[in-house]
């Protein structure tokens, strides 16, 4: 028995048995996450590591990280459909699917994060136009719709579905209007990536997170956008490479990967200029104005200076140099390592902005606390990764995701 007729034309896939065994592993992790979700919904957020000090925890850190890493979708879409960077044609489908996974996964996690999930729609019904979170709620939802619209033609190109005339024409028409959605998606993603950063920057009574503003936006608004577009393309390329390693097939030409690395490196360099300026202005302006010294906002291992060093140097300056240099960028293992470091850097940034901001004792007689996520936070987060693996596995097996696959594997 085989499902060969559903595969894209001229490609090779593993046996159905092996595929089902792989799906079983994925479903086991998913089941653990669903059980955790049941525990959280039925028992409340008391089962998490969050408390009166840590209003936000792993759910938010995970959300911010995947949304940053999913930025490959909007930025690649912007570069391909609007600026016409032709090389991205061979990876744009994957970028869209990763974006879809990251955003839908983030929304799924958010249903656990709010204390009153049944009232989550109040964000649309009673919006506070001054709240950065309102902007996030609107943009993330609408962008999710845009990503769904961008994903639909890829699904309709399945070999069997595409034989149905109506669906064939529908997919074609979707492709024709895709630049419009790429533009809308870029606009929406730009604002909500920014608003996620703005969420922290406007906390004027939390000196670790507070930043000065440009017009109505704090600096973090722009820093979050830049760090997302620096890490997103590299992450997309890494996922393609991981899929190649797992399937044993060449999926994307290395020149495309190097191009993604170049985009990541360029955006990272631009980001770092502003990030260094921001860190300097924060350490010499905001902190002393709040009566704090640079050393006072770091604590122990969980909130140590090593995080800042790792974020700005090891996962910032170092990979930026490697990615901007053509020689190192064109060496596969260096390219992959550099993009991995960039991804780690953005995760560190989202972690410190969330956990360290809340852990830092603002009142002089208060004390530091260390946030530790519980299994009820890890399980849904891992389940979202499994959910991503499920979508990618199905898409890879049954949809024409990689236009170069046939050519690259002809031997």
């Amino acid at each position, binding site marked *: 028995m085989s499902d060969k007729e559903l595969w894209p034309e001229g490609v090779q896939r593993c046996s159905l048995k092996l595929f089902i065994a792989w799906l079983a592993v994925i479903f086991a992790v998913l089941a653990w996450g669903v059980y955790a979700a049941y525990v959280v919904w039925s028992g*409340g957020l008391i089962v998490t590591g969050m408390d009166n000090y840590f*209003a936000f925890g792993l759910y938010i850190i995970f959300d911010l990280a995947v949304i940053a890493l999913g930025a490959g979708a909007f930025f690649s879409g912007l570069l391909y459909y609007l600026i016409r960077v032709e090389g991205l044609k061979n990876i744009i489908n994957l970028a869209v699917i990763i974006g879809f996974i990251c955003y839908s996964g983030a929304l799924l996690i958010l249903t656990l994060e709010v*204390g009153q999930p049944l*009232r989550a729609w109040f964000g649309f019904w009673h*919006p506070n136009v001054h709240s950065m979170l309102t902007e996030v709620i609107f943009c993330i939802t609408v962008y999710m719709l845009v990503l769904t619209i961008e994903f639909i033609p890829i699904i309709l190109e399945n070999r069997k579905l595409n034989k149905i005339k109506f669906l064939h024409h529908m997919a074609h028409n979707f492709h024709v209007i895709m630049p419009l959605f790429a533009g809308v998606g870029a606009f929406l993603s730009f604002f909500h990536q920014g608003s996620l950063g703005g969420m922290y920057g406007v*906390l004027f*009574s939390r000196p670790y997170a507070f930043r000065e503003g440009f017009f109505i936006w704090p600096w973090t608004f722009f820093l979050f956008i830049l760090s997302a577009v620096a890490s997103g393309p590299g992450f997309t390329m890494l996922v393609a490479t991981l899929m190649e390693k797992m399937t044993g097939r060449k999926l994307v030409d290395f020149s495309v990967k190097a191009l993604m690395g170049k985009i990541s490196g360029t955006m990272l360099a631009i980001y770092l200029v502003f990030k260094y300026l921001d860190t300097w202005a924060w350490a010499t302006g905001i902190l002393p104005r*709040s*009566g704090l010294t640079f050393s006072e906002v770091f604590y122990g291992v969980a909130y140590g200076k090593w995080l800042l060093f790792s974020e700005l140097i090891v996962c910032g300056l170092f990979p930026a140099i490697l990615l901007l240099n053509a020689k190192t960028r064109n060496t596969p293992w260096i390219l992959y390592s550099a993009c991995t470091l960039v991804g780690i850097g953005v995760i560190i940034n989202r972690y410190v902005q969330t956990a360290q901001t809340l852990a830092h004792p603002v009142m002089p007689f208060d004390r530091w606390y260390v946030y530790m996520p519980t299994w009820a936070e890890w399980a849904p987060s891992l389940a979202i990764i499994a959910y991503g693996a499920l979508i990618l596995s199905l898409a890879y097996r049954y949809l024409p995701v990689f236009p170069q696959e046939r050519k690259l594997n002809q031997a």
Partner: protein
Amino acid sequence: MVLYLKEFKIKWGMVIDLDRCTGCGACMVACQAENNIAPPVDASNKRYSLTWLLVYQLSNKQPYPNHDVAYMPRPCLQCGKPNCVPVCPVIATDKNQEGGIVSQVNARCIGCRYCMAACPYHARYFNWHDPVWPEGMEKTLTPDVSTRPRGVVEKCLFCHHRYMAARDKARIEDRDPNALAEGDYIPACVEMCPTGAMVFGDLENPEHKVHKLSKSPYAFRLLERLNTKPQVYYYSKREWVRKQGDNYLEHETVGGV
């Protein structure tokens, strides 16, 4: 949505004399009882308990015999420029009524906890547990205060229901509800304080004691330099206590005499 300081003709506020406070905790108990805060599930874990008003212990960190402590009751400070209000995505909290009390609409709150992240005073509390009162104890509930379900953020409202009752009483007695005399409206914690450390009134009314006390050189507000403009003032003649009201760098001097 307060992005700027909102001024009110009436501005209810508190002055707490930290030299008088003994840290007895009567204010905390009064607050719990008055505002229908359910008995804690695990009272040993303070990071999950609801204490709208929390008494902090301050220490001058000097060795004996120079060691000194002070106790600092901390209700919601009803900031003039509250950080919690502009961040709330659903306008569940606001500061737009006469009296300048930061409101919290429990039925509107979605439990995102962004307001908790914004408040540097930890004055907002998430309802981690379903509120359960032991059998018979429901008779002690205050009828004018709604109970809150699990999953929403709650906070001190200066016993706002008492303000409403005082205004109603003034109307019935044919007095101006917008010109309440000192003592017409006081929160439960102030009423219960055995040492008279807590004084409550209209900060804008020269006839109210708080007006004068708040202008004393010994009065200070928590984290003054963060510019949240709290309507709760603290008072202490001890310099080290005033110094702990804000973060001071080594070269900086503290206010007062």
